[in-house]
C-alpha cells in the first residue's frame, strides 16, 4: 500500500478503531454493572431456570401444562398462544381488508363512504385503546353464564366463547361452563382489535395494489364477458397481489409485533408469560427479555420467509 493511499485511508481507520473501542468500553461497563447488580440481588445467571418448576397455571395452553411443568413448557405454550392469535388475526384482517379495499373502489357511493369511514376511524384510534375497548366494554357487556347466548351448540357469555368439540357439547354447570372448547374473552378481544386495526392498513395496501392494475385489463375483461366480481377475482386480484404482497408481508410482521399488547389484558402470550410472569418470578429479567426478543425476531423471520416464498411463487406464475 503506497503512502498516499495510507494517508487517505488513515482517518477512516482511526475513526473506526475509536468506534470499536467506544462500543467495547460501553458493553464491558454495562456487563460489569449488570454482574455487580445481579450479585447484590443474589440472582443466578444463565438459562438453567428453564428446567425448574413453573409453579403457575396458564389460562389457555395448546400443549399440556400445569404448575409442576418446567418453565420451558411455559415458554412453548406462550409461543403457541402468540402464533395462534397472529394466525387467526392475520386471516381475519386479510378478509376484512379485501372487502374494504374493493369497497373503497366500488361505484356505489354508500359502500365507498362506509369503507372510507371504517379505514379512517379505525386507523386513527390507537390499537391499545381499541383492544381495551373490546375487552372491557364490549365483552364485559355480554351476559353472564346463567343467561348465555346460544347459537346451535355454541355458548357465548362474558367468560368466553364455548364451541362444541365432537360429541362434547358445552353446557352451563353451576357458575361455570363445562365441556367443549373454551375461547377466552382475552383471545377474542385481542383477535378483534388486531384484525380490525391491521385490516385498515392492509386495506390501503391492497387498494394500492388494485389501483396499480391497468384499467385496460378491466375493460378487456368486460369485453370478453367477465365483469364485476368474476373480473375482480380472476383478473384484478392476482395482479394486484403481486404488487401488494411485499408491503402486506411487512404489515403481517407489524401485526405479529403488535400482538405483544396481550400483556395489557392478560392474554398468556410471549410478552405476558415470558416477559411478565417468568421475568418477575425468577428475577432473571435479562434472560427472559432475551428470550422474548429472540422469539419475536424468529416469528418475524418466519413471516418474512413465508411471504418471500409466496412472492416468488406469484412472480413465477406471471406470463412472460
Amino acid at each position, binding site marked *: 500500500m503506497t503512502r498516499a493511499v495510507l494517508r487517505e485511508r488513515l482517518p477512516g481507520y482511526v475513526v*473506526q478503531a475509536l468506534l470499536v473501542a467506544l*462500543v467495547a468500553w460501553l458493553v464491558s461497563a454495562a456487563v460489569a454493572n*449488570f454482574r*455487580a447488580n445481579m450479585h447484590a440481588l443474589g440472582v443466578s445467571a444463565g438459562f438453567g431456570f428453564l428446567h425448574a418448576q413453573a409453579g403457575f397455571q396458564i389460562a389457555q395452553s395448546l400443549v399440556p401444562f400445569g404448575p409442576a411443568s418446567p418453565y420451558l413448557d411455559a415458554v412453548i405454550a406462550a409461543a403457541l398462544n402468540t402464533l395462534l392469535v397472529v394466525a387467526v388475526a392475520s386471516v381475519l384482517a386479510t378478509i376484512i381488508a379485501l372487502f374494504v379495499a374493493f369497497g373503497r373502489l366500488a361505484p356505489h357511493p*354508500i359502500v365507498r363512504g*362506509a369503507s372510507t369511514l371504517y379505514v379512517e376511524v379505525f386507523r386513527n384510534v390507537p390499537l391499545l*385503546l381499541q383492544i381495551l375497548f373490546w375487552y372491557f366494554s364490549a365483552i364485559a357487556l355480554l351476559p353472564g353464564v346463567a343467561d348465555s347466548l346460544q347459537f346451535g351448540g355454541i355458548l357465548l357469555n362474558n367468560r368466553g366463547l364455548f364451541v362444541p368439540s365432537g360429541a362434547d357439547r358445552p353446557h352451563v354447570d353451576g357458575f361455570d361452563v363445562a365441556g367443549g372448547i373454551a375461547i377466552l374473552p382475552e383471545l377474542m378481544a385481542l383477535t378483534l382489535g388486531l384484525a380490525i386495526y391491521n385490516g385498515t392498513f392492509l386495506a390501503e395496501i391492497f387498494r394500492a395494489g388494485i389501483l396499480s392494475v391497468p384499467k385496460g385489463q378491466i375493460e378487456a375483461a368486460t369485453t370478453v364477458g367477465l365483469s364485476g366480481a368474476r373480473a375482480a377475482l380472476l383478473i384484478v386480484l392476482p395482479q394486484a397481489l403481486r404488487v401488494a404482497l411485499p408491503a402486506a408481508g411487512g404489515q403481517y410482521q407489524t401485526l405479529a409485533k403488535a400482538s405483544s399488547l396481550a400483556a395489557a389484558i392478560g392474554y398468556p402470550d410471549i*410478552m405476558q408469560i415470558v416477559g411478565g410472569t417468568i421475568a418477575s418470578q425468577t428475577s432473571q429479567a435479562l434472560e427472559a427479555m432475551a428470550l422474548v426478543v429472540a422469539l419475536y425476531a424468529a416469528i418475524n423471520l418466519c413471516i418474512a420467509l413465508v411471504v418471500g416464498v409466496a412472492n416468488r411463487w406469484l412472480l413465477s406464475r406471471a406470463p412472460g
Partner: protein
Amino acid sequence: MTSRFVRDAPIDARAAPVAAIAWPWRGRRARFATPATSALSLLLLALCAFVCVRFVDWAIVRAHWLGQSSAACPGDDGACWAFVIARWKPWLVGNYPVGQMWRAWTCFATFALFWIWVVRRPPAGRPGPVLVGFVLLPIAFLILLVGGGPLPLVAPTQIGGLLLTLVVTLATFATALPIGLAIALGRRSQWPLVRALCAMFVEGMRAVPLLAVLFIAATLLPLFLPRGIDVDLFTRAVIAFALFNAAMAAEVFRGGLQAVGRGQIEAATTVGLSHFATLRLIVLPQAIRAAVPALVNIMIAVIKETTLLSVIGVNDLLGAVEIGAKSPDWVGESNILTSGYVFLALAYLAVCYGLSRYSRRLELSS
C-alpha cells in the same frame, strides 16, 4: 349479393351526463340504478340510521353530564360524561400541583400557537425552521415544567395525562429525528464498520415490538447502570421511545436520501465541494424535504404509541382514564369506563385524522 345497412332515422338520444342532472336526482343514478343496488342502498341507509340513532341516544339523549361520583351515572343506558368533565384536571395534567398550573397552560398555548404557525406555512416552504422548532420546543417545555432554579421544582413523575402525551411525543420526535438522520447517513458511509453498526441497530429495532423495548427500559436498564445512578421511569421511557423511533426515522431518511439523484453528488464533486459541504448544501435540503410527509406519519404513529406508556405504569392520557375509572369515586358500572374510552377515541381520532390530512396536503404539494 352485398347487403348494406343505411340508417334512415337518427338514433335515440343518450341520457344526460350526471353533471347536467339537477342535484336532487343526481344521486339516484348511482344509488338506485338497478333493483339490486336500490335494495343495497336501502339496507345500508337503514343500518346507518339504526347505528346513528342508537349512538346519539347513548351519547346525548340519555347521557349524564354533571356529577362528582359514580352516583351521578346510575345504570348502563347513557354515557357518563360527568366522569369526563369531573376528571378534566387529572386527564389534562396528571398530578401537577394546582398552584403551578400556569406552567402547563403556557405549554399548551405555546404548542397551539406553534402548530397554527406550522399549518399556515406554505407546503413548499423550507422545512428547516419547523424541524428546529420541534427540537427546541420539548427542551423548553421540560425546563418550564420541571423547574429548578427560580421556579419551584416539580418531579417529572407528577406530569401526567395529555400534558405527558404532548411532552413525550415532542421529546421523542426531537430526539429521534437527529439520531435517525445520523444513522441514515451512517448507513451510506464508506466505512464498513459504521455501516454495519447502523444497519444492525435499525434491523434490530425493527424486529422487536415497542412494548418489549419499553419493558427492557423499565426493568432491565436500571441493572445496567452503576449502583447509585438512578434514572426515573419517565426518562427511561422517553429514551426507549427515542431509540425505537430513531430506527423508524432512519428508514424514512434513507428513503429521502436515496431520492436525491447520484448525479447531484457527482456534480457537486465536480464543482469542488467537500463531502460535508455537499451534504449540507445539496443532499440534505432535498432529502429532508422528500422525507417530511413520512415524518408526519411517524409523528402520528408516536402519538398512538404513547398509549403503551400506560402498560408500564407511566401516567399518560390512557393511564389517567384507567386510574380514574378505578378511583373510589368512580368505580362501578362498566359504562363509566366505556364513556372514558369513547371520549379518548374521539380525541385521538380528531388529532390523528387532522395530522393525516396535513400529511396528505404536504405530499400532494411536493
